[in-house]
C-alpha cells in the first residue's frame, strides 16, 4: 500500500483533516475525499480553469496542486462563496445576467471573478478578460460572463457604500 | 394524386423524371403504387416492411414521423430526404 500523508488544512474557513497519497491532486482530495464536488474537472492540465480554487488567497488550478501541499494552508472553493445570508454578489450577478449555460465552468469563473473583484473593485473589460483567460467556457462566448463581472463590481461597490 | 419527387440518383427508374404523380392516401400506398409503375423503386425506399432508416419523408414540406402510416393528401408533395440528426 502506498504511504498516506496526513494533511491538516482549512477549507472554506473550517479545519479539515484527510489522508492522501503523494500522487493525489488537491482536486482529487476535494472531490473524492472531502466530497466537495463543486470544483470541477475539465482537463487535468491547467488549461480550462474549471478546478480553480484559492490557496492562501491565490488562484490555482487545483489539478496542478498536490493534495499534500495543502497541509497548513487555507483553501477556498466554490462551496465557500455563498454565506448563510445568501449568495455572493458575483453569484447573484451570474444568475441575473444569465452568465451560465451548462454551468460546468461556472464555479471556476465565480472563484476567479471574486478574487479579481476583491483585489480590483472596478476593473475594465480588458482587465476582466485578461484575468479570466485561464477559465474556458464553451457555451456562452463570454459576453454575459464579462457583463456579470462588471455588474458584480457595481453590486459590491453598492454594498460597500 | 400525390406528387412524388424522386431522389436524384433514383431517377434512372423514372426515365429521368424529377417528379411523378401517383395515387395513394398513405405513404405505404404511394410507394406501393410507385412500384407498380416504376419497378425497383420499393427496394430503394424500403428496408423490410419499413421505410429505410437512412431516409426521412417530407409531406408538403414537413418531415413526418409516421413512416409508412403518414397520410398523404390529394395534392400533397412527397419528398424522400436523408435522415437527419441535430446537435
Amino acid at each position, binding site marked *: 500500500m502506498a504511504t498516506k500523508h496526513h494533511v491538516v488544512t482549512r477549507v472554506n474557513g473550517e479545519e479539515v483533516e484527510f489522508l492522501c497519497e503523494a500522487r493525489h491532486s488537491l482536486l482529487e482530495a476535494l472531490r473524492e475525499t472531502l466530497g466537495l464536488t463543486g470544483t470541477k474537472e475539465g482537463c487535468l492540465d*491547467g488549461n480550462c480553469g474549471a478546478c480553480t480554487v484559492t490557496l492562501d488567497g491565490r488562484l490555482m488550478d487545483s489539478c496542478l496542486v498536490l493534495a499534500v501541499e495543502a497541509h497548513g494552508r487555507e483553501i477556498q472553493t466554490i462551496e465557500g462563496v455563498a454565506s448563510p445570508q445568501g449568495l455572493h454578489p458575483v453569484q447573484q450577478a451570474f444568475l441575473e445576467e444569465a452568465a451560465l449555460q451548462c454551468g460546468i465552468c461556472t464555479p471556476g469563473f465565480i472563484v476567479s471573478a471574486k478574487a479579481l473583484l476583491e483585489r480590483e473593485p472596478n476593473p475594465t473589460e480588458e482587465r476582466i478578460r485578461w484575468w479570466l483567460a485561464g477559465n474556458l467556457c464553451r457555451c456562452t462566448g463570454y459576453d454575459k460572463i464579462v457583463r456579470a463581472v462588471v455588474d458584480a463590481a457595481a453590486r459590491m461597490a453598492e454594498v460597500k457604500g | 394524386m400525390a406528387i412524388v419527387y424522386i431522389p436524384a440518383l433514383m431517377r434512372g427508374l423514372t426515365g429521368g423524371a424529377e417528379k411523378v404523380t401517383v395515387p395513394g392516401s398513405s405513404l405505404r400506398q404511394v410507394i406501393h403504387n410507385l412500384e407498380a409503375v416504376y419497378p425497383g423503386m420499393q427496394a430503394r425506399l424500403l428496408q423490410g416492411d419499413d421505410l429505410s432508416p437512412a431516409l426521412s419523408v417530407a409531406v408538403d414540406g414537413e418531415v413526418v414521423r409516421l413512416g409508412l402510416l403518414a397520410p398523404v393528401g390529394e395534392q400533397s408533395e412527397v419528398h424522400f430526404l436523408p435522415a437527419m440528426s441535430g446537435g
Partner: protein
Amino acid sequence: MNDFEYRAPASVSEAVALLVEKGERARVLAGGTDLIVQLRGGRFTLDRMVDVKGVPELNQLRYDAAEGLVVGAAVPCYRIYEDELVAAHYPALVDAARIIGGIQIQGRASLGGNLCNASPSGDSIGALIALEATAVIAGPGETRSVPVEQFCTAPGRSVLGPGELLVALRLPPPKPRSGAHYLRFIPRYEMDIAIVSAGVAAVLSPDMSSFVSARVALGAVAPTPLFVTEAGAALAGKPISEESIALAAEAARQAARPINDMRGTVEQRRHLAAVLTTRALRGAVARAKGEQVNGH
C-alpha cells in the same frame, strides 16, 4: 500515475541530499505546472518528489541597485509582476511573467521551473538571456553559476547534473540607457505556447542615437532557446534606425533553425523570428528612452 515519495526540505543542503540519494528517480517540485502534467501524462515516472517551496533561498526576490536582481528559483510569476522594483527595472521580465499561462498558473509557476523544464519555447528564458541572467546551481559539489543561454542543452534537458538544484537566477543591474522587451507570437491572445518568441535588450549611446550593444534571444526556433549573438553584433555601433533593426532581424532569421510541428512551420517561424526581433527591438529602444511599452 504511480505513487511516489513526497519530501519538503527546509534547506538547500537538505534538498540536495534528497536529490542525490535518488538521482534520476527524483524530481524537483516548484510550481509543478509542467512537472505534474508530464507525470500525469506518463512522460516519466519517479520515486521521489522534492518540494522546494519551503527553502528560503528559492523564495527570495531581492533587488539591489549595485547587485541587481536575485530571483529564487521557486518564486512564482505573480511575485515578479506585482513587484514594483522588478517592474521598474526589469520590465522585460514582467513581459514574460505576465504571459505564462493564465492567472491560476501564474500563482504557482516559477521562472526557475520554466528554465529547468528547458522547453525550446519557455517564455521566461528568452527574457532571461536578453537580461544576462545567470543560473545559480547548488549540488553535491561546489555551487556554480551558468549563464542562462548555456543552461538548456536539448528539449527538456539542461546542464543540471545528478543531485543539482537550481537555487536562483541573478540578473545584473540594468545598464544606463538600456531597455529590454520580450514578445512572443501565439495564435490566441493568452493561454498558448509561443510559435516564436524574442527577448531583446539594447544599450544606447549617450546621445541616444546609436546602439552600443544588444542581446537578442529567440524561442521555439531551435532545440533550445537561442542566443543570437550575430543579431546583437549587427547592431553594435549602428544608428538607431529601421535599417539597423532590419539587419538584426535578418540575422535572427538566419540564425533560426526551426522545425515543422503542430504549432508552426519552418518558413513561418523563420519569418516570425525576424518580425518579433524587429518589434522587440523597437520596444527595447523605446524603453531605453523612457517610454512606456505594453507587454504584448
